[in-house]
């Protein structure tokens, strides 16, 4: 994708699909730079969900009546559409709807981890894992009596791949790694890690929460055994997430929660399970959300994920350069480029990140502050908290200017 194509992206037309971008607070238009937490929702997604509720709201799977058939087809098709979007050729047989990335992690940790892990086994994580992965595997490993190892993050904010090769051994049963760090922005070499894991007959679980929204992802090219992401970070609704798993692995896995809609046959004594993905989706699923996620995927593909990535990189480079030009700003993570996702975590000297965020809020600039669910990583960085600006395809350079200019107010107050 050439620079010209990138600049050719009609940002104004995209922004028009997101009425919330016009939202004012205290007479100021909100500058929304918290997209790594959640992205806004475009009209076609809201419309698709409204249309479901207005025209064919019904429960799925077992209904014989017409509305239930329409809802069932829409719900089931959404699996195929999302699977296709991330390169899963098995369609719905490889794509489970969950609540979010966290639940996808838990599904595999409980279903596979609790039954397969035991003393002597190792789970390899990285120091930059989100708590969704870190806490889940730490606790499941503890219950199973397995060990946890962490691949080091080096001074540039990248994984120490030599250390990864040391950590992953024949005792390793699972490698769980974040594709794009939500704190450092690092894009990790997940395909290389998958090769290392597979060389030792271990599975690899990739947390793609920050990757699927921001770049083309092909789970088969990565050769991930499992891959998780969330709808609400990719212009879809909250309440729905995805778990990709290789068909043969999911086929053999026991479900980790039980109920209706997942079964083949039930007697008073025992039950047998339906096919993937339904055996992992008991109870009434997020139907409207699935319809919305389908529309979100259509929306992103209309723009083109290569363009989304190029836009993210351009905005990130601009923000990084502007912030790096300030002597009193410390930025975490790698320099801009293909190895960095669309976010910049930083601290302004002498101002706690929460105070900074409160002051920026006065300028209607919305960023996040805290440990971003990576407490151990912040401990390693030696800071209690950081501020994080994160961008999406609808953001502009002018909005980044507003962020940088608002820093002056914080300096003045805390001087």
């Amino acid at each position, binding site marked *: 994708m050439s620079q010209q194509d990138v600049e050719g992206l009609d940002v104004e037309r995209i922004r028009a699909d997101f009425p919330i971008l016009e939202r004012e607070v205290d007479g100021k238009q909100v500058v929304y730079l918290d997209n790594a937490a959640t992205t806004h929702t475009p009209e076609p997604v809201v419309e698709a969900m409204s249309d479901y509720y207005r025209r064919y709201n019904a429960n799925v799977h077992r209904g014989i009546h017409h509305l239930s058939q329409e809802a069932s087809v829409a719900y089931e098709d959404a699996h195929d559409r999302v699977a296709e979007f991330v390169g899963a050729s098995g369609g719905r047989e490889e794509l489970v709807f969950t609540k979010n990335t966290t639940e996808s992690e838990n599904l595999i940790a409980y279903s596979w981890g609790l039954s397969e892990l035991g003393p002597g086994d190792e789970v390899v994580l990285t120091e930059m894992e989100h708590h969704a992965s870190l806490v889940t595997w730490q606790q499941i490993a503890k219950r199973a009596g397995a060990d946890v190892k962490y691949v080091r993050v080096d001074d540039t904010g990248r994984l120490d791949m030599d250390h990864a090769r040391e950590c992953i051994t024949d005792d390793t049963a699972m490698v769980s790694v974040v594709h794009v760090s939500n704190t450092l922005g690092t894009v990790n070499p997940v395909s290389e890690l998958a090769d290392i894991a597979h060389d030792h007959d271990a599975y690899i679980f990739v947390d793609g929460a920050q990757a699927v929204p921001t770049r083309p992802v092909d789970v088969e090219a990565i050769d991930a055994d499992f891959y998780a992401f969330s709808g609400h970070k990719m212009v879809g609704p909250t309440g729905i997430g995805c778990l990709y798993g290789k068909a043969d692995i999911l086929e053999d896995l026991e479900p980790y929660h039980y109920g209706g809609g997942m079964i083949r046959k039930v007697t008073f004594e025992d039950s047998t399970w339906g096919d993937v993905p339904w055996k992992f989706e008991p109870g009434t699923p997020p139907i409207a959300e699935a319809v919305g996620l389908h529309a979100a995927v259509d929306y992103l593909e209309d723009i083109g994920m290569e363009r989304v990535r190029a836009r993210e990189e351009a905005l990130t480079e601009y923000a990084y350069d502007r912030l790096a030009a300030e002597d009193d700003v410390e930025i975490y993570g790698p320099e801009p480029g293909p190895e960095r996702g669309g976010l910049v975590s930083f601290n302004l000297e002498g101002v706690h990140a929460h105070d900074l965020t*409160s002051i*920026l809020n*006065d300028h209607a600039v919305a960023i996040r502050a805290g440990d971003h669910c990576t407490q151990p990583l912040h401990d390693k960085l030696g800071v*209690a908290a950081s501020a994080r600006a994160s961008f999406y395809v609808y953001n502009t350079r002018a909005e980044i200017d507003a962020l940088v200019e608002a820093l002056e107010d914080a300096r003045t107050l805390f001087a």
Partner: protein
Amino acid sequence: MGLGSDMYRQQILDHYKNPRNYGELEDPTFSHVGENPMCGDEIRMDIRLADDGETIENVAFSGDGCAISQASASMLSTKLAGKTVDELLEMDRDDVIDMLGVDISPMRVKCAVLAEKVAQDGAEIYRGELDKEKTTTTED
């Protein structure tokens, strides 16, 4: 100006930049530590009681975190001397917000009340009314 900068009035910034009673007491009757995981704020309160075992004689605090939590601890430390433990325990979040003298945005109230909660939990542990293993947190 909206809520944000209103929170950072001169008094709060003054206490943040020049904290009163900062440090640790040599002979506290009780001391207690607490944290606000959201901001990563951490505060230790040392309190010495007079011979009557009821009146707060001396207070010190230490720790680090955002301006709201640290200023709140500093201001509280100046208010507590002369109060009784019962009076400390009767304080609530409105007392802290009145003391700060500014509107605290809802997401930052946890920062504001941390010091008060640490002092109160410390007092209850001292009186044996609270499990001493309990770490104070303003998570919820």
